[in-house]
């Protein structure tokens, strides 16, 4: 174990050369990702040592025993060696010992992650995968949102982990935010769980990691780790019914008289569909189209006009609204802060 620490240090230097990326698995910011990171350093150390030894032997053999002169038929054949029980036994036993060591280290991380003691104050979020977006429900708080997951920051002094209970509404998906934790699949007819505890405030990115259909590539994940105060404020705001701005009444009427309501929910209105994302507070989100574009009026308008502009293969059809109606609906949705 101690010998491998040298290798760990070496590996960290190499790996930190490309640490600036937002989804780097070697830049952990939560407990599950950190314990995987430590384990992976051990594994990388061991495999690097094996590589250097075996590749070194290979290189030596090629240099030492490579035939320099033309090796004609007349020349002597080298001594024929058929095997050696002692040597073969040694290169069976040593790998077995390495396997035992690695296995024990691995088992510990499997159990500490998957069998972690659940804390009483933990937050529960239900995650439902859809083609090609994420539904997040907070059953303790009555909040429903989409694509942008808000969780409180957790630190070692005040652990505040978030437990994700996951399933899918259609095909298989996988929730992967590399800096927070390993991935976990969302499978229809099956409930999986995982937990995250971001240690520092900020935005963590990820995306669906199980091929789920045409637009798998743009099923992006955004996890906002807020301070406990910010998080409480966010929850309180989300619990409010949708803003009813009289200035956007025309857009609201168009929305309520179109097919929009059969797929989308806007709390406090006749729109109660569940096939698409909840739009009650869509105006307050940073992005639309599951994180693929910024939430600006222009982008929103283009998306409503034809979602395939950003996400070809998205299940929402083009809405065939004329320019005036498009403007009105866009204006309405932007008021839903």
């Amino acid at each position: 174990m101690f010998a491998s620490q040298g290798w760990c240090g070496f590996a960290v230097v190499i790996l930190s050369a490309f640490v600036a990326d937002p989804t780097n698995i070697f830049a952990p910011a939560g407990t599950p990702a950190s314990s995987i990171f430590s384990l992976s350093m051990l594994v990388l150390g061991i495999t690097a040592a094996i590589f250097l030894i075996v590749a070194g032997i290979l290189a030596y053999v090629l240099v030492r025993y490579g035939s320099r002169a033309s090796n004609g038929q007349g020349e002597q054949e080298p001594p024929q060696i058929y095997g050696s029980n002692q040597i073969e036994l040694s290169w069976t036993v040593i790998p077995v010992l390495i396997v035992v060591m690695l296995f024990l280290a691995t088992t510990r991380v499997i159990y500490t992650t998957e069998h972690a003691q659940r804390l009483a104050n933990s937050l529960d979020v239900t995650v439902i995968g859809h083609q090609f977006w994420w539904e997040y429900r907070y059953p303790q708080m009555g909040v429903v949102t989409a694509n942008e997951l808000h969780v409180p920051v957790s630190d070692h002094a005040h652990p505040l982990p978030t437990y994700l209970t996951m399933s899918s509404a259609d095909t298989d998906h996988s929730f992967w935010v590399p800096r927070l934790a390993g991935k976990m699949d969302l499978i229809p007819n099956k409930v999986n769980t995982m937990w995250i505890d971001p240690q520092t405030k900020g935005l963590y990115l990820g995306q669906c990691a199980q091929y789920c259909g045409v637009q798998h590539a743009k099923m992006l994940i955004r996890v906002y780790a807020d301070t406990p105060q910010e998080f409480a404020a966010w929850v309180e705001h989300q619990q409010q019914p949708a803003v009813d701005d009289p200035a956007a009444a025309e857009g609201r009427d168009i929305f309520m008289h179109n097919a929009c309501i059969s797929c989308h929910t806007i709390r406090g209105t006749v729109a109660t569909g569940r096939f698409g994302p909840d739009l009650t507070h869509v105006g307050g989100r940073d992005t639309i189209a599951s994180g693929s574009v910024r939430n600006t009026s222009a982008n929103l308008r283009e998306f409503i006009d034809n979602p395939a502009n950003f996400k070809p293969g998205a299940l929402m059809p083009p809405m065939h609204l004329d320019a005036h109606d498009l403007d009105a609906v866009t204006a309405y949705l932007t008021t839903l802060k």
Partner: protein
Amino acid sequence: MATQIPVDEMHDQIARVPRRLWLEVLHGWVTTVDHKKIGLMYIGYALFFLVIAGFEALLMRVQLAIPNNHFVSPEVFNGLFTMHGTTMVFFVGMPILFGFGNYLIPLMIGARDMAFPRLNAFSFWISAFGGLLLYFSYVGGSGLYGAGSAPDVGWFAYAPLTARVFSPGHSTDYWTIAILLSGIGSIGTALNIVATIICMRCPGMKMSRLPLLPWLYLVTSGLAFVAIGPLTAAQIMLMLDRYVGSHFFDTQAGGSAVLWMHFFWIFGHPEVYILVLPAFAFANEIIPVFSRKAIFGYPAMVAASVGIGFISLSVWAHHMFTVGLGPGGNTFFTLATMIISVPTGIKIFNWLATLWGGKIQFTASMMFAIGFLFQFLIAGLTGIMLSVAPFDWQLGNSYFVVAHFHYVLVGAILFMLFSAFYYWYPKMSGRMLSERLGKWHFWLFVIGFHLTFDLMHVPGLLGMPRRIYTYEADRGWMIWNVLISSGAIIQTVATLLFVYNMVWSYFKGPIAGPDPWDAWTLEWSVPSPPPSYNFAEIPTVASRRPLWDLKHPEDPDSDYEMEQGSPHETQKEGA
């Protein structure tokens, strides 16, 4: 005792048959039951699909070279990776390995043909039909719905994406039936190989004298038996789901998506070994010959191969570490997967020990074999990383995994296949491949391979999942993808060079003669190409290397094998 090398004039007379019409030639190939011709057809058919599936890979690499590229649509891209994977596994990997097996096994065990020549022809043609049917989906995939479309469910076709509600049209059906058909062919050939090796060995060839290539083909064929059954069953269940209204995998009606994963991977992981064991088999023949030494630790090599065969049946759910098996399941499959590294390690060490003390000849064939050894070492080490379940929670389904299995499939298997081509092409065609072109091919391919697949590990570590048709610009993945794609172009050039070498050498290459490598197994005792009956007189062998005995009568292997009761570093001086 020793083998007769038949150098009858009869062969020359047979070679001098008058020119025939092309239709007669074609008829000869279509109706043949000769294991050599069937082997060559398998190889030719696999090379054809290798070019197609390689071209598909190239299109994907162009699309992924830069973020938010619009070179192909997501629908086309998803079809490309599905067809690339399916083709490479079922219509390149399997047939090319069966092709070499078909050609070489009877020659190496001193038989005149396979045990069931007609079954052999049937197996080839049914597999070939499966491949053509798969590609017909590009024309007929959507059936009455409109134009064609390739299957786009991924090569492991996870449920419920394959249900009719998510995959309307017939493209998924073409995929299912193509794999069903190729599975029938594979089982037929596997059965044939097992029967041939068990029953058709020449006098004196006890199982303990069987060359390692047939030994490993025995293991691989046994695995194919066990593994293809569940796959076929799953395909039939899928068809029932799609057309008869059953609900095995139909999650909308209470079916289980995880059930499909189990069925698929209990085929899919042994399949990896079905593909890689023949590569080991080639290495076991080629590395000793170009080291001028007997294989080190023959009994250990056999035991390790059989061990890999058995253990490989208990590792499948390491493809499923993220589906929620729970800590117990993840722990078990971590251990099973790690254990397989022990017999695999024994093989690598024994190859190194074979090289040790030899006189290594750097022919093109040997260079590819050394490339195989080096790359297989790395592939094995990244495999250990992936066997660590928590590490896999990060690496699984990322580009790291893509890099890992391409290291196995290209870095190990394809390299070893190229090595086998340089080694046995003279036997099959009667002419040598150009060594000069072969070395160009090797160096170009090595550079392209490492540029592509070494760097491909990195975007996986940076969070890039597989099977995405495009990616965000802000993730820092672009630089890696540009380099990966440029490596793909170099590999393409190298492969074209290889194809050119094969064609050019067929007409212009130097005449090979029966034994150009001064090798030791029975296939080198007959003319190149061998006559249809292989051996004018069935040979009798007294050791694992009958031609060594013949060439070194003062120091035959049979002496060593007689005294094997005390095998402590038994050593003999050369001739």
